[in-house]
């Protein structure tokens, strides 16, 4: 890719990353809400629920980070395997 093409790609990647970020937040809200919020006898968030949400976000972010590491490793291994097969 030329320098100009790289710049174009970078612009598109930035747009995509922003979209990605918004969807991560969306998923987090859905997941944590579904797991933590089950009591509708009050419209105010209880202390339990708030704590659950906080822990949910922290755990989800830790999980994401770990999965990113594993994904990079697995992806590399898969690419190496595909190259090996292609050369056979």
């Amino acid at each position: 890719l030329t320098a100009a093409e790289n710049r174009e790609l970078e612009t598109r990647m930035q747009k995509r990353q922003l979209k990605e970020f918004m969807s991560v937040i969306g998923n987090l809200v859905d997941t944590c809400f579904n797991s933590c919020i089950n009591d509708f006898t009050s419209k105010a968030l209880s202390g339990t629920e708030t704590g659950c949400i906080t822990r949910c976000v922290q755990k989800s972010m830790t999980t994401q980070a770990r999965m990113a590491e594993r994904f990079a490793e697995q992806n590399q291994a898969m690419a190496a395997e595909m190259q090996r097969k292609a050369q056979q």
Partner: protein
Amino acid sequence: MSFFGLGRPQPTSAEKIAAVENELKMMADMHNRMTRVCSAKCVDKTYRESDLAKGEAVCLDRCSAKFFDVHAKIFDQIQKETTERMAAAGGGGGGGGGFGM
């Protein structure tokens, strides 16, 4: 990973960018699916702790390895089955062409 071999017409700028973008998109999609699926299988949904437990972490690692393996296996199998089914249909279509007319 290069898709473009010798002897083919040179891809346009737009095609090259699109190819890279698509590959990155597929990778991102796979990453998201893996995270979602493995979280559902491995992470305690009551969120009693904010840290990943050792058991959960190990489960996530194993899950990601299995996810990739399953992806590769299914990919290979689909390719194989498609080829076989198309071959069978090709052979059967010649014989079945005499139906109903």
